């Protein structure tokens, strides 16, 4: 007798799978995917702005296959697995067919629903059913049914014991080969291969800004600015555990310092970029002290709310008529002068990319030194348990304030650079969205991890720039991405491994323990 809930469970699976597929279509996922494919692989799968029929067919087949693959439970026997696959594929195919009937009706009745769902032009609906009209519905049903079944069968074969063992032996063989390969390597390479990869990365980063066009340089500098900001905020949130939602305020302090000191209006001081940038960094640090002293006792939610308020106060002040003569009010400050270095002024986008790359390198260096230092340990202890930290003699206020100051300095730095790069800064450059974006990049990428921060910055700032044409559902798609991320990888794309705190050398410990165990040595209680 088959288990009674097998049918229901599989049907539910099919329902959920197909609804996910339909939902992704509705938010224009296929358009984004087609765009990405065109850009990354250089294959044109777009007709105008709509994915071609062959691309849509590919998408359907891929989805159907995945549905089938995921339909059956690994621990069941073959027969019921196939049954599961069949039921799931039938349900999914059925629902997609129903959806197609609806689309077909909309197309034939020439009802325009783009007002509600911008991704759904008549063409894109027609292409969803493969431009076949009514017969397309049957084709789709067939695709989902048969490809789904194929997926199930392949999953069964792939997950069978025989396949498992052969995969494992293959893995072992590869491991062995890698081992012998690395054994043959000179010790120098064995120990330092990581640096080799870093070196290659650096060389690539040095060459690329000259090769790719000014648009990609623009994207790269936006991402770079967010990388530095992310490192700064990570010191506050990731290392010392203080949730800061007003990070943009420190941005603003850096940006406005550079703007006010190095733009023709409103003051025309023209101090030069570098001194102004230094002033900006110092201003942000002072701002952190002023914010930090009153909030030292706050934690968690309370801290988040107060810092959020702080960020908004700064933005509203900059926007207000009160300071209009001093800061330019809502119109902001234009024509901010960029830096000059060795008599050469920064004009092109690639100049700024290089500048930002240099600062990223410096930031990473400072961050690594801090995270693995005594200070880093104190921060981690405070983050874990402030009372226990205090009881072990950590200066709670001092270290919390230090984290705020250092984090703010990074923000002041990038604020100044970004202002000079854009030759403009205004209150809206420092809105709550900026703070939230920087925090989200840490959450998406993974806290306490430099690769995570870079990935996060790229995902949050780089991808949306590249996909600007399809940005209608950007925010929605992003929200969904965040939810999925939290479910699938709750610690971020590339979370940091906890810094190793064991600074005591194992050797010293061994030596001492043998000394102590010797009966000769009189054990004094330390």
């Amino acid at each position, binding site marked *: 007798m088959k288990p009674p809930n097998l049918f229901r469970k599989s049907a539910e699976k099919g329902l959920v799978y197909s609804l996910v597929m339909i939902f992704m279509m509705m938010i224009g996922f296929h358009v984004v995917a087609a765009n990405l494919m065109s850009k990354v692989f250089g294959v044109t799968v777009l007709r105008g702005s709509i994915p071609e029929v062959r691309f849509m067919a590919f998408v359907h087949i891929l989805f159907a296959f995945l549905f089938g693959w995921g339909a059956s439970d690994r621990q069941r026997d073959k027969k019921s697995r196939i049954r599961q696959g069949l039921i799931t594929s039938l349900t999914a195919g059925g629902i997609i067919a129903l959806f197609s009937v609806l689309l077909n009706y909309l197309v034939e009745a020439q009802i325009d629903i783009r007002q509600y769902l911008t991704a759904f032009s008549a063409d894109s609906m027609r292409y969803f059913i493969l431009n076949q009209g009514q017969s397309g519905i049957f084709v789709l049903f067939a695709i989902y049914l048969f490809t789904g079944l194929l997926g199930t069968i392949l999953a069964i074969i792939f997950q069978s014991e025989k396949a498992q063992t052969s995969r494992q032996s293959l893995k072992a063989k590869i491991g062995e080969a890698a081992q012998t390969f690395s054994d043959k390597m000179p010790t120098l390479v064995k120990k330092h291969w990581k640096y080799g990869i870093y070196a290659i990365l650096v060389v690539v980063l040095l060459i690329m800004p000259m090769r790719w066009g000014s648009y990609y340089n623009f994207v790269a500098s936006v991402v770079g600015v967010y990388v530095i900001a992310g490192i700064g905020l990570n010191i506050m949130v990731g290392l010392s555990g203080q949730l800061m939602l007003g990070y943009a305020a420190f941005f603003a302090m850096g940006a406005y310092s550079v703007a006010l000191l190095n733009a023709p209006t409103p003051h025309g001081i023209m101090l030069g970029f570098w001194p102004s940038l230094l002033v900006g960094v110092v201003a942000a640090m002072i701002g952190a002290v002023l914010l930090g002293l009153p909030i030292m006792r706050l934690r968690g939610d309370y801290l988040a709310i107060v810092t959020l308020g702080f960020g908004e106060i700064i933005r509203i002040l900059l926007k207000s008529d009160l300071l209009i003569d001093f800061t330019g009010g809502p119109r902001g400050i234009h024509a901010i002068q960029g830096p000059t270095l060795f008599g050469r002024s920064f004009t092109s986008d690639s100049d700024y990319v290089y500048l930002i790359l240099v600062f990223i390198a410096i930031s990473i260096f400072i961050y690594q030194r801090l995270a693995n230092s005594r200070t880093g340990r104190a921060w981690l*202890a405070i983050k*874990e*348990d402030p009372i226990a*930290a205090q009881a072990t003699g950590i200066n709670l206020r001092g270290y919390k304030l230090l984290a705020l100051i250092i984090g703010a300095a990074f923000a002041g730095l990038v604020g100044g650079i970004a202002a000079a790069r854009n030759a403009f800064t205004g209150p809206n450059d420092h809105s709550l969205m900026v703070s939230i974006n920087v925090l989200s990049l840490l959450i998406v990428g993974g806290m306490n991890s430099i690769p995570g921060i870079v990935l996060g910055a790229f995902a949050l700032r780089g991808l949306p720039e590249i996909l600007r044409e399809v940005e209608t559902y950007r925010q929605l798609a992003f929200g969904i991405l965040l939810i999925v991320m939290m479910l699938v990888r709750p610690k971020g794309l590339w979370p940091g491994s906890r810094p190793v*705190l064991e600074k*005591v*050398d194992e050797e010293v410990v061994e030596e*001492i323990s043998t000394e102590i165990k010797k009966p000769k040595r009189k054990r004094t209680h330390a």
Partner: protein
Amino acid sequence: MLNVSNLHVHYGAIHALKGVSFNLEEGEIVALIGSNGAGKSTLLKTISGLLEATEGEVSYQDEIISGQPAQDIVSKGVIHIPEGRKIFPKMTVVENLEMGAFLLRDRRLVAERMEAMFERFPVLRDRKKQLGGTLSGGEQQMLTMARGLMTNPKLMLLDEPSMGLAPVLVEKVFDIIEEINEQGTSILLVEQNAQMALSIADRAYVLETGRITLSGDALDLMENPLVIEAYLGG
């Protein structure tokens, strides 16, 4: 060694300590017993600098320490073991112990002390690489005590070391407290388990709603009818 005189502490409008005075001589175990909300933990937190007194003063070795920041008090050799086994849950046992030695800069000394801790608490040696949060309740209590001992304190403020432990473990913890005391660390012990506390203490104070109501030798207090009725279960 420790002298608390007329100490007042407020939490906002709540008057938690209403003029507490007591003293502790070098080498003693002094127990503070009292029921929930009597102000026992508040008193310890004020001595160790986690809370600020509104009135009165705490002096340690003839120096006024009330008003000084917690880290300075720790560096003078007064260590507070907070209640509720406040270990660092995501750090390993070794790292927890290292945090205890945060104020020590001499790595060799840290390693030496750590070895001494492993000798005293063998169970911690077995759990060396384990995260603090994965230890059992008793092991966590051992770890907090070991962490406190890393600085080689002269005075240890112990807050409810028996909290939530099985009776067998409670006895073990109290044995260790006596051992620590024999090796020269004075101990101020806050406990709800009055029976156990009085059995190892030299002297004791009874704290009720922010005031000290009784004091004396631990053995005498054990026979005091008031104490028997209120804290030793009649």
